């Protein structure tokens, strides 16, 4: 399959502050890629590098086989972009504003704009200035999707959207991918990516800390287990099992709680030696996987000076 986005050792430093350190990543055609990380981890930096809004300190980015710097115009014609803090302004109404943006792309059929706006429940006769945060985000979505781009680059796309519209948005993403288009979307919330993404990359302090399919990430996920026994059991039977953590047996010796990461096989086989009256296992959300990668990490990229301090 063809790589729509190819990042090679992509590095961006802002003065002494590190924005991105040697990011290497491929996104293939037709996939929905979730780019996760807390605020300040380097998500927007990566995205703005893709669109040539900023230039890399070192390394290389290729988008749709094009160089963002040299072939910027051609590249951006084929990309739909929604900024992290989408801003638009003006006295004109939404319809006129979208028509202006469409004009910058050499025109987009009005019917296409209308269909998207209707679907998202965006009233095009409202003045841009008077739009709420959520409706402004809808304008951002319409302008990103309207020219049916081969690649959608969406930075925190569902921020400010109510749950119903968020679902519509996820449908739109899924449809785009089904149509062979590629979606690269960033988020700091796992759950909004979980539903549509094929693969997820987790970025921390400007470098990739995890990259896998959603299914695989979930397999490695931790689940909380609670077991009740007919009679008291020895804690020692469970202590040495692989993947078992936070083991706790209550005073009566009949109620055991623990967390299991990885395959629960050994645990299940051990349980079978006792008389079990109840078993409850809750698969933790991918959110927890996500947080596991962040344990001990600061939310913002660290500067060299603060590392020393």
């Amino acid at each position: 399959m063809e790589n729509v986005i190819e990042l090679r050792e992509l590095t961006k430093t802002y003065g002494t502050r590190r924005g991105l350190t040697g990011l290497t990543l491929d996104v293939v055609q037709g996939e929905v890629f979730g780019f996760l990380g807390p605020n300040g981890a380097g998500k927007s930096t990566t995205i703005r590098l893709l669109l040539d809004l900023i230039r890399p300190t070192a390394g290389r980015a290729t988008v749709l086989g094009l160089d963002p710097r040299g072939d910027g115009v051609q590249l951006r014609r084929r990309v739909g972009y929604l900024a992290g803090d989408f801003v638009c302004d003006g006295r004109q109404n939404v319809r006129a504003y979208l028509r202006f943006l469409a004009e910058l792309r050499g025109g987009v059929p009005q019917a296409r704009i209308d269909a998207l706006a209707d679907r998202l429940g965006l009233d095009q006769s409202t003045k841009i200035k008077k739009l709420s945060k959520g409706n402004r985000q809808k304008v951002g979505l319409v302008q990103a999707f309207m020219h049916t781009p081969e690649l959608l680059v969406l930075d925190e796309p569902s921020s400010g959207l109510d749950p119903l519209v968020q679902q519509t948005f996820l449908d739109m993403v899924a449809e785009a991918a089904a149509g062979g288009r590629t979606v690269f979307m960033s988020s700091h919330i796992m759950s909004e990516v979980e539903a549509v993404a094929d693969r997820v990359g987790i970025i921390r302090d400007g470098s990739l800390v995890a990259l896998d399919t959603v299914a695989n990430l979930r397999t490695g996920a931790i689940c909380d287990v609670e077991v009740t026994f007919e009679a008291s059991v020895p804690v020692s039977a469970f202590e040495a099992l692989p993947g078992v953590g936070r083991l706790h047996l209550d005073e009566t010796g009949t109620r055991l709680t623990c967390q299991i990461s990885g395959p629960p096989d050994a645990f299940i086989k051990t349980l079978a030696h006792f008389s079990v009256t109840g078993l409850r296992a809750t698969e933790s959300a991918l959110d927890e996987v996500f947080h596991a990668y962040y344990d001990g990490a600061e939310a913002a990229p660290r500067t060299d000076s603060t590392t020393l301090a």
Partner: protein
Amino acid sequence: MSAAAILTKTLSDSRRGLIGWAVGTALVGMVYASTYPSQRENVDSIPEALRQSLNVDGTAAGYLQASVFGIIVPLLAMIYGVTMGARAIAGDEESGQLDLLLAHPITRTQLVLQRFGALVAGAFGISALVWLAVLAVRGSAELTSVSPLQFLAQCFSLALLAITFGALAVGVGAAVGRRAVVLVVVAVVGVLSYTASTFATQIGADWIAHLSPFHYYIGGEPLRNGFQWGDAAVLVIASAIFVAAGLARFNRRDINS
């Protein structure tokens, strides 16, 4: 992209401000120009030295040069140029709107040139209205010694002055992306230019005046001598340099988020 989408949008977004400013500037020019009959006598009471430095004499052209086209109208026209120029790149960059525009299939050069084009159009619009306004009172204010064509020449210079300072603002804005920097730089340059052109003769350093855009705006006295193409060329070239220099930096730097 359709050829002038950004230029048209910039003008249409700023049309209220532009129309208001143009009407205001024209009215101020008209009111000042109408006071010529009553002010003519006062000129004689101004001390000779000051009269010379301000380039004032009792003629219509001399009066207009010192008052209407000497201070207030060019100041208003320049404020327009600088405001539009600062907004062109720096303003939109600070508000975050530049990200959206530049994520479209346009080049940074196109963006800057179209924004500057809108500024040029606006400056000519204001000047044209000022011209019509002074023509309207030309007879009643006894200004007939200055021909409509000479008025046009002066208003043409006026547009170029506004454009020159606008170009400086566009250039600095494109280079640094911060409106406060633009305004400080332009204000300093503006004050120095005005001072240089006004007091150069008195401090016995005529050459300093040649560094000032004001010199090329009014030094050739278009109200007496008509179009000063050499002076106009200097302002046009200076504008081109300001915009080109800003653009050179803009094309290389990061857009602030």
